């Protein structure tokens, strides 16, 4: 039985910190609680990106598999962050695997539900865009630095 409403969990999650209660309500309407045991996959490369996850407790690894090299882990995501960006842009397909590194509890947000609500309520849409844009820019900049392979020997 839910002790707190989902919209309160949404408002309390760092990804949506400071968001108006009515927007938390709207997002909460697309949300549900999920949990992943250690080693379970949140999603796999190629699957439809139908949802994204606000991590409440636990840790998730992002990986891509290459034949002969196994799974290449290129990022980890902690509690208070979100997992999944492919739901934002067509063709809405996951391009990597996400695996729970420990018992992980998250809020799963139905992507189609949220996209439709954003289409219908542009204030909500703009709020989502501002928040995700800031987080994605941060991730992009971090990824660029990571890519420079600054620790490697020069060629």
């Amino acid at each position, binding site marked *: 039985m839910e002790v707190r409403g989902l919209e309160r969990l949404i408002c309390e999650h760092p990804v949506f910190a400071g968001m108006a209660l009515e927007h938390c309500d709207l997002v909460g309407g697309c949300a549900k609680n*999920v949990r992943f045991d250690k080693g379970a996959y949140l999603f796999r490369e190629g699957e439809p990106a139908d949802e994204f996850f606000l991590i409440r407790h636990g840790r998730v690894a992002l990986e891509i598999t290459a*034949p*002969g090299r*196994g799974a290449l882990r290129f990022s980890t995501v902690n509690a208070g962050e979100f997992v999944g960006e492919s739901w934002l842009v067509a063709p809405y397909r996951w391009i990597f695997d996400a695996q729970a590194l420990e018992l992980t509890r998250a809020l799963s947000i139905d992507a189609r539900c949220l996209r439709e609500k954003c289409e219908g309520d542009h204030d909500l849409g703009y709020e989502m865009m501002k928040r995700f844009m800031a987080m994605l820019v941060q991730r992009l900049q971090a990824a660029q630095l990571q890519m420079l392979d600054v620790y490697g020997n020069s060629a």
Partner: protein
Amino acid sequence: MTAARHSVLTRDGVQALLDALHRRGCRVLGPTVCDRAIVYDDIASLADLPRGWTDEQAGGRYRLLPRDDGALFGYAVGPHSWKKFLHAPAQLLWHAEHTPTGASIVPEPPAAERLAFVGVRACELHAIAIQDRVLLGGAYADPHYRARREGAFIAAVHCAEPGGTCFCASMNAGPKVAGGYDLALTEIVGAGEHRFVVDVGSEEGGAVLAELPRRAATPADLAAADAVVANAAARMGRAIPAAEEVPALLRRNLDHPRWDDVAGRCLTCGNCTMVCPTCFCTTVEDVASLDGAASEHVQRWDSCFTTDFSYLHGGSVRASPRARYRQWMTHKLSTWWEQFGTSGCVGCGRCVTWCPVGIDITEEVAAIRASDAAVRESGR
């Protein structure tokens, strides 16, 4: 001069068969008891055959038990299959020399020895036909396999005693033989008599039969032979129902949780691939002289269960036991169809019997079927 289509031999007739094959210069191979199992090896006389023995087989279990009727072929199949003679476990492919004055690569000529197999079961005839397609049916035929195969004389035997792990009926591979043999024998033993109804399958089979002491088969003989086969078909130890649906079933269940389950049991020991009559995978090795001037390029049996079978770019593509078991089972029952146009499995049950932990391919199919992706609700 050839004999009529169906004849009857006594035990002496079977000895005469072995003698006739020896006279033709064949290396005569057949079942014999060794190390408490019935294997295939050189045989010269009836005394070499496992007379009065039967086998008890289950998952991870094989025992020989005595039987009191003196049957010569009263057992199913053992750990050997005829592939050990046709598709050699070690085969020199070429001899190379490389010196400052020149280089040469000389192919090893195919063996001249002529083989005769006595006691080939229906599942084994199918297995040989399956390997024929792999090793002879492509753009490049294997010359060593071809030489041994084309000369081989095959005296088949109908199973009277199917094994506890047999499911040839499910795979349309037995117990009735359906071509590919020179002679086919059905042993009828009991009530004080011991005879073999013989069916001729080729010209040479007829010519050999003509040299043996025999009489013509009566309708009663033929009915008795049919009854033996029907009886065997009804006593299969295992089954894969609707086997024709299995290729597609496995194709859509490559991520089924059952693969994790079997991975927890599978030792990746590769026994199944060694005993399977259709497994054909090989690797090659170069063995060079100390000065490097001469070397031999040797082909050896390999198994997809080894960690470096799929080695690529510094690691293995199939590193986990889960992936390796899935590869073997999906190849055997599914992708073999796309690759070679037939199933890879003849339902002989050897992989079940000789698995140290008793993994049963028919049970794995049933488990995957029980929660097939097509009917499973999607979701995590």
